[in-house]
C-alpha cells in the first residue's frame, strides 16, 4: 500500500515536472532552432499573467495538461503487464516494452513473455496475475501442479495402453508412439519445472513489480468471476465497475482520455495550421486568390461533415489516424481561416507592416515576424473550444458506432453501452459521462480564462 502511494506521488511529481519544465523547454528549443525568437514580449507576459490570475482556468489548465502528459505514459502506470518480472535468471520489463512499442512503432519491440521462462509451464503468454498470486502464497501452485500431475498420469496411462511399435509397424504408427512419448516427457518436465518453481518461489527466487493499477483495457477482469457486469466496488478492487464484456472501466476511461485528448489536439493542431496558412495567404495576398479560395471554403463548409464521416466510416473501418485526417479535412481548418484572414487583412493595412514593406523586408519575414505573431489571438482563444468540439465529435462518432474500431478504449462506445443497458446498469452511463463532462468542463474553463486573458473586454456602460 505504501509502495503504491509512493508510486503515485512519483508519477504525479514527474508528470508535473515534465509538463511545467521539460516540455516548455523543449518547445522553446525547437522554436529557436526554427529561427523564432521565443522570447515573451511584454504583451505576451501580461496575457500570461492575466491568465494565471484567473484561478479556475489556470488550475484547470494545469490539471488537464499534467494529466495528459502523465497519460502519455499510461502503459507503465495502468497495465496488466508488470513493470518488471524476474524468475531465476529470466527477467523482463513487459510494461516498459509496451510503452516503448507504442512510442516507437517503427521498431519491432516484442512484449511477449513466454510462460515456460517464468515457471508457469507452457508456451503461451505469462499469466502475471497467477505469478503474483503464487508469489504471495506458493499454495497457488498446487492446483497447477495437481492439474499437470493428472495430465502426466493420463499420458502415462494412454502410453501404457499403446503397444510399443516394432520395426515392422507402419511409419505413422511409430511416429505417433514417439510423439506420445515425447509428450509424456514434456509433461513430466513441466511437472518437474512446476515443483521446482514452487520451491524457487518459496525461496524468493522470483519477483514481480506491478504497475499502479494492474489491469488493462484490452482484457477482461477474470478475477471477478464469469459474470459480465460488475458494478463499482472498492472492496472488490473495481472502483468504477466493468463494461458489458467484463473490462475494467477505470482503465477504459484512462486510456480513452488519452485517445480523446490526443485526437482533439492533433485535429485542432493540424487543422489550425492549415487554417492559418490558407487564411494567411488569403489575407496577405488578397485579390483573386482570396475570392476563389473563399468560394472554395464556402463550398467545402457546406458539406455536412459528420454525415460524410459516417458514410465513409460505414464503408471502411476507420483508424485513429484516418478519423483525424477526415475531421481535419472536412472541418477543423475551416473556421479559423476566416478569422486569420480577417486578422491578416487588418494587420497588413497597419502602418508597421507598411513600414516593413517600404523597407524592402521579404514577404516571408513580414508574414512570420510581423503579422503572424500579432494575429494569433483568435487561434489561441478558439483552440480550447475547438478541442471541446473535436472531443465531442469523436465521442459522437464512437457513440454511433462509426468511430474507432471496436476494442479501442473509447468514451463514446462506453456511453453507447450505457444507453443499451440504461435500465439495468446506470453506472455504465454515469462513469463515462462524468469523465467526459469533467474533461470538457475543464477545457471550457481554460478556454474562458484564455479568452478573458487574451481578449479582455472592458464593458462600461452608463447608468
Amino acid at each position, binding site marked *: 500500500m505504501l509502495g503504491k502511494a509512493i508510486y503515485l506521488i512519483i508519477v504525479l511529481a514527474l508528470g508535473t515536472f515534465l509538463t511545467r519544465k521539460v516540455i516548455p523547454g523543449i518547445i522553446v528549443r525547437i522554436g529557436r532552432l526554427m529561427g523564432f525568437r521565443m522570447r515573451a514580449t*511584454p504583451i505576451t507576459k501580461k496575457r500570461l499573467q492575466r491568465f494565471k490570475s484567473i484561478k479556475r482556468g489556470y488550475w484547470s489548465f494545469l490539471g488537464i495538461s499534467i494529466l495528459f502528459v502523465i497519460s502519455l505514459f499510461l502503459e507503465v502506470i495502468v497495465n496488466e503487464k508488470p513493470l518488471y518480472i524476474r524468475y531465476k535468471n529470466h527477467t523482463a520489463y513487459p510494461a516498459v516494452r509496451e510503452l516503448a512499442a507504442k512510442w516507437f512503432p517503427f521498431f519491432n519491440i516484442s512484449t511477449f513473455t513466454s510462460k515456460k521462462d517464468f515457471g508457469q509451464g507452457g508456451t503461451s503468454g505469462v499469466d502475471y496475475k497467477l505469478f503474483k498470486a503464487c508469489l504471495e502464497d506458493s499454495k497457488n501452485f498446487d492446483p497447477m501442479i495437481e492439474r499437470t500431475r493428472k495430465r502426466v498420469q493420463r499420458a502415462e496411462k494412454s502410453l501404457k495402453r499403446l503397444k510399443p511399435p516394432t520395426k515392422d509397424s507402419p511409419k505413422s504408427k511409430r511416429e505417433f508412439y514417439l510423439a506420445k512419448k515425447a509428450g509424456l516427457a514434456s509433461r513430466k518436465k513441466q511437472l518437474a519445472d512446476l515443483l521446482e518453481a514452487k520451491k524457487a518461489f518459496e525461496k524468493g527466487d522470483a519477483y514481480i513489480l506491478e504497475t499502479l493499477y494492474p489491469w488493462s483495457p484490452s482484457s477482461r477482469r477474470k478475477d471477478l468471476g464469469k459474470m459480465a457486469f460488475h458494478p463499482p466496488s472498492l472492496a472488490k478492487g473495481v472502483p468504477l465497475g466493468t463494461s458489458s464484456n467484463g473490462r475494467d472501466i477505470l482503465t477504459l476511461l484512462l486510456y480513452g482520455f488519452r485517445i480523446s485528448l490526443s485526437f482533439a489536439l492533433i485535429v485542432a493542431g493540424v487543422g489550425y495550421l492549415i487554417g492559418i496558412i490558407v487564411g494567411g495567404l488569403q489575407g496577405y495576398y488578397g485579390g483573386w486568390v482570396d475570392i476563389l479560395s473563399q468560394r472554395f471554403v464556402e463550398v467545402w463548409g457546406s458539406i455536412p461533415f459528420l454525415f460524410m464521416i459516417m458514410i465513409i466510416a460505414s464503408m471502411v473501418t476507420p483508424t485513429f489516424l484516418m478519423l483525424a485526417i477526415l475531421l481535419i479535412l472536412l472541418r477543423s481548418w475551416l473556421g479559423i481561416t476566416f478569422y486569420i484572414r480577417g486578422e491578416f487583412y487588418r494587420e497588413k493595412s497597419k*502602418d*508597421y507592416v*507598411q513600414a*516593413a*514593406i517600404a523597407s*524592402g523586408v521579404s514577404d516571408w519575414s513580414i508574414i512570420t515576424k510581423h503579422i503572424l505573431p*500579432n494575429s494569433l489571438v483568435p487561434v489561441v482563444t478558439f483552440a480550447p473550444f475547438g478541442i471541446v468540439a473535436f472531443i465531442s465529435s469523436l465521442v459522437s462518432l464512437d457513440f454511433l458506432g462509426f468511430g474507432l474500431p471496436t476494442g479501442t478504449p473509447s468514451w463514446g462506445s462506453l456511453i453507447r453501452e450505457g444507453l443499451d443497458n440504461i435500465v439495468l446498469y446506470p453506472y455504465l452511463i454515469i462513469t463515462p459521462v462524468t469523465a467526459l463532462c469533467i474533461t470538457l468542463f475543464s477545457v471550457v474553463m481554460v478556454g474562458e480564462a484564455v479568452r478573458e486573458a487574451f481578449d479582455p473586454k472592458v464593458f462600461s456602460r452608463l447608468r
Partner: protein
Amino acid sequence: METTMDTDKTLSKTLLEFQELKVHFPIHAGVFLRRVGEVKAVDGVSFALREGETLGLVGESGCGKTTTGKAIIRLVEPTGGKILFDSEKMGKVDLCPMTRSELRPIRSEIQMIFQDPYSSLNPRWSVGDIVAEPLKVHEPGMGHKEREERVAWLLEKVGLTGEQAHRYPHEFSGGQRQRVGIARALATRPRLVIADEPVSALDVSIQAQVINLMQDLQEEFGLTYLFIAHDLSVVEHISHRIAVMYLGNLMEIGPAEVLYRNPIHPYTKALISAVPLPDPRKTRPDRIQLQGEPPSPLNKPSGCAFRTRCPYAEPSCAEERPPLLDAGSDHQVACPIMMRE
C-alpha cells in the same frame, strides 16, 4: 525677381519627379465581378521634388495625397505615368515599371514616416529591433555590435536615449513613438523621406517638438521631405514649396510664401481661408466659404474636378482638365480662369 528664382531652380537638382502619375483602384461589381470602373485616387499628377527641400502636399481626405506618397515606395501600385528618381546607386530610374526585387536596393534611399504613432510600430518588437530592421535588410554585412551602436546613435539623434532600445512601444508616449518612427526612417541614411501626416495625431505641445526635430535632421543629413498633411498652418511653416491636391488632381504648386500670401486657385484660396487663425482679433475678411462637400472620387466631375464647388466656375470648366499654367516665380496653377484675370 524671376531671374533669382530661376537660378535657385538650377542650383538644386531634381531628386524625384512625377510625370502624369496615375493610381486607379478598380471596382468590381455585377454577378461575375467584372471590372466596372475605377476610383481615380491619383489622376495624372506631375511635379518634382528638389534635393534638400521640403515639399508640402496638402488637401482634404480622399484627395490622393497619401496615395501619391505611397506610390513612390510602391505601397500602392501606380496605374500609369512615371516616377523618376535620381538614385545614388542606380542613376536616374523610373520607379513605376520596377519589380519589387528591383526596387529593393532603392528602398534604402527612400523612407517613410507614418501618421499614427500607435499602429506604425510593431507592438511585439522592442524599439531597438524596430529601428534595426531596415539595417538588417539593407546592410546585412553589418555586425551585431555595430548595428546596436548605430541604433543607439539613431535613437539619440531623435532625442531618445540608447538605453531605451530595449523598451517596447507601449512604454512610450505618442510623441516619443513618432521619434522612434523617425529613427527607423533614418536608419538607412535615406535621401528622400515621405512624411505622411507625421504630426497630425500628436498633441499641440508635442507637434512643435517633432516639427523642430524634422527640420534639424533635414539640415544635418541633407534630407528631402515630401511632407503630406491636411493642416495648412503646419505645412506652411515647414515647407519650402507647397502643392495642393483635390480629387486626385494637382491644383496649384508654388513656394510656400507665395502660395500662402497670394493663392490663385479658388480651391487654394478656400482652403487657406478655412484655416482658423490663432488670433482672436483677426478675422478673415475675404473668407471663401465653400458650399457642399467634395464629390465622391467614384464619379468625378468632368473637366476641372473642383468646378462643382467653385464660385468662379464657367461652362468651359467642364470640358477638359485644366493644365498647370505658369504664374511666374516658380508658381503653377491649374485654373485658366483665374489666370486670365
